[in-house]
């Protein structure tokens, strides 16, 4: 099994969620993060001074899936999260050794 971690622009979340739904992904976990990268940080103004805030709000999506579905999921995210502007984010694929559903104790595929 694999875990997909996608860092995307917050306002794209709805689109990504829908794209994932369409390919049958029914579970995911999201969190609010701040990103630092090529995308230039915000310029904020504070009483006559302008300063750069390096960290930009991003949304992180975590999805654990069957190894075979990885490409499909990655494609769905790529298409739905893309705005063609710097800062669109990254997708990371990590190995997962086991998945357990708390309610039933089911393991592996069945637990997803």
């Amino acid at each position: 099994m694999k875990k997909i971690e996608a860092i995307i622009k917050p306002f794209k979340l709805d689109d990504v969620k829908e794209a994932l739904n369409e390919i049958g992904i029914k579970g995911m976990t999201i969190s609010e993060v701040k990103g630092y990268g090529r995308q230039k940080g915000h310029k904020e103004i504070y009483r006559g001074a302008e300063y750069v805030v390096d960290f930009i709000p991003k949304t992180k999506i975590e999805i654990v899936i069957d190894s075979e579905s990885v490409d499909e999921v990655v494609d769905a995210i790529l298409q739905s999260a893309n705005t063609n502007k710097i800062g669109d984010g990254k997708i990371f694929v990590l190995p997962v050794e086991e998945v357990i559903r708390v309610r039933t104790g089911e393991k592996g595929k069945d637990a997803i």
Partner: protein
Amino acid sequence: MRKTIKVILGGIPLIFLPQIVGAAESGSVDTGTTSWMLISTALVLLMVPGLAMFYGGLVRTKNVLGTMMHSFVSMAIIGVLWVVCGYSLTFGESIWGGLIGWNSDYFFLQGIDDAISDGVPEYVLAMFQGKFAIITPALISGALAERVYFRGYSLFIILWFLFIYSPLCHWVWASDGWLFNAGAAGVIDLAGGLVIHVSAGISALVVALFLGPRRGYPKSAMSPNNLVMTMMGAGLLWVGWFGFNAGSTVQSGLDTARALTMTQVSAASGALTWLIIESIMFRKSTALGLVSGILAGLVVITPAAGVVKPVGAITLGALSSIACYYALVAKGKLGYDDSLDCFGIHGIGSGLGVVLLPFFIRESWMADASAAIGKAWTTWDQLLVQLTGMGATIALSAIVSLIICVVVEKTVGFRLDEEQEVAGLDYSLHGERGYGMLTSDH
């Protein structure tokens, strides 16, 4: 100087002033009435942050400051404009066939430095009225929330103030205004059912239609960022409304007491009714529903607080909540995006009050009206006057708002471009964030 006071008494010109002890002859000050008018002015000012909080809590986090700015900036812009020419345009003598007023003494308030009007320094009356002029455009900001340029909004409220508020206020509240003199005793609009809420509500609808919906509306849920603040704001609005309505009697006497009482009662009744509706519809009642009901009760009684009695106030409050509730439901179906429901609450609720108040008028008022005109003055007669006022308000607001929208869009720009809308007003237009909690401790 008498003019001013008559002017402002708008809704209640026939009530027994002599009853008041110590009401001073022109030229000397009644400290008690002055005290109440001073504090009423402060109370109406309190409504500006109150409104900023109310509206600010309802938008998404990325727009919270921008939305609050819409209320605050009116204090800056209209606050200055009022002194420069606003008081003159509204409460000056009729010019251009009564379309608007002008009095060069009022230009920069130069000529009223020593003026005392029925016991109250005219400065206070001018400032009290100025607060009304400040808050009215800010109400409209509910309809255009989350999607306009700050510069566009600023230009919009300037034009709106000059070309809608000023004439309308002159018609309804200036002693030589045509609506002030319509029928036996004028159109009844104590604290601005027409001048403030219907005009703002109708304009709101026009603006919402002109701008089109926020991107994503209604598909994505646009959850309030801070309902807690919305509730705080509602609390301040209720408190401030006492100054708004009871201050509009320009007394510290029986009429004032009546206006305050009806305001309180209608607000409570509106709140209770909304809760009941919701618990029937959803088996739950909401905090936003409660405060919406408070507002519905407050706007409906605004024109009427000087002339109805408690049973009337309770009834009006309840009817207003019902009407506003269904107006909001209808909005959902019609699909236009009056984002924070300025039309649905201020327009509908206060419009209802303007039209229904003839049916709840205190008998003594009708008797005085009949006496004044020398023949029986009926509810239906007054209804006709009210409807005339309503028609004029709607026509003026709708037509001129549309023109203003076009002008703003074509000059400085009104509707925000997509990228900025997505990023949010706070960052795009103001270079700030409302809450810096997440990383502020680094």
